């Protein structure tokens, strides 16, 4: 049985309609500013260039490999992710299936001490306060099959380091991805996507 609407209920119904119209207007206004295209999604192995599959077969990985495609405005890359000996490996290939780089998650205490001090020195110059969230060692050399088989940690002095940092550079805290060379100098610094957009819901 439908209860009779009171004046208050009618007022809230009007507010509902107005809020929908207002929201649609806001979205229409905001949509015009969206120009950056970047998308990644899972793909099957049969959609990956054979060169990349063949290259990956040279590694001693014994667990399932997940393939992803990273689409950008004018290019795309193929990325394989696999767990091996407790670490997450990400191997990136270009559109032709040629290796771009291999990245592996490591802990700060596993890094060479002199590189760690140089990186902390650099971070101290950039940020008032910072906290390291994630470290990946990045390799671009051709002899990666050997390095992974013998234990990747032995070769960290030859690696670049991609570090995710939460830091305050004077304009509020944000997360950054910073690439350091094997000598500990900054090669690239990029602010990551901002504060979680829908955190209040």
């Amino acid at each position, binding site marked *: *049985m*439908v*209860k009779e*609407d*009171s004046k*208050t*209920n009618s007022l*809230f119904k009007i*507010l*509902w309609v107005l*809020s*929908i119209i207002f*929201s649609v207007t*806001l*979205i229409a206004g*905001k*949509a015009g500013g*969206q120009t950056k295209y*970047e*998308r*990644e*999604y*899972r793909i099957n192995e049969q959609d990956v260039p054979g060169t990349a599959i063949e290259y990956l077969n040279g590694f001693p990985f014994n667990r399932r490999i997940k393939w*992803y495609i990273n689409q950008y405005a004018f290019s795309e890359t193929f990325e394989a992710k696999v767990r091996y000996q407790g670490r*997450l490996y990400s191997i990136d290939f270009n559109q032709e299936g040629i290796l771009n780089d291999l990245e592996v998650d490591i802990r700060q205490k596993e890094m060479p001490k002199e590189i760690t001090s140089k990186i902390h020195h650099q971070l101290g110059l950039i940020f008032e306060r910072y906290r390291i969230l994630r470290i990946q060692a990045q390799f671009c050399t051709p002899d990666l099959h050997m390095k992974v088989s013998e234990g990747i940690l032995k070769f960290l002095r030859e690696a670049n380091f991609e570090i995710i940092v*939460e830091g305050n550079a004077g304009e*509020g*805290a*944000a*997360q950054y991805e910073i690439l350091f060379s094997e000598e500990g100098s900054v090669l690239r610094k990029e602010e990551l996507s901002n*504060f*979680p*957009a*829908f*955190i*209040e*819901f």
Partner: protein
Amino acid sequence: MHPSFLKKILLFTLTSLSLCGIGNAQKDFTTGILPSIGLTTPIKDEWRLTLRMESRNQLFSGQFGSGISSDFNYILTDFSILPTRKFGSTGSGGAGYLLRSRNGNYYHRLIQQYTLASNIYSLKANHRISADQTFSQAEPAEYRLRYRIGVELPFSGLVIDNREFYGKITNELLQKLQNGAYNLENRFVAVTGFQFSESHRVEYGIDYRFSSILSPNAKHTFWWQINWQISL
């Protein structure tokens, strides 16, 4: 880290849900729809403002095993305003106000909440602790303390991109104190969402509420949630 965190969420959810069946003699239930619109906009520096409208409409009611009857009934509408401040790159806290219209009465609620988000590879986890105090001429004041845990997972790839579907599961425990009586409610939500753009999402799914883990006459309510979220 990823599998163990999932285990903790699963354990918390299953424990809460299993408590919902203890000592429940009469299994009354109601179903309905719960549409909402929410808008979050930056104000200045670290501050944001969230406006939200939510309506509750009952459709059916009955008892488990005894059939279901059509029972359409508009229940209430909530309008809330919540200014929040960013803390770090993943925290948000604030205090706000909610106005509820129900059965011709007005309810005034003061809200305090803190939310923390974290990424575990492709999984986004979210913790929310909140307290609220509700005042009305129709009922004694009600005081609640809430904890909600939730996870968000893209259906495709490792990140929720635009024009992609994702799943979200949350479980919330609400402690209530009203007129000297203590109660413990559990809410479990499982929704599918679609991200139209970085500022626009729609979610739909089920919101299951068990009115009291402590009472043998507690009610089950199943709300069909339809959420429209805008973040500028």
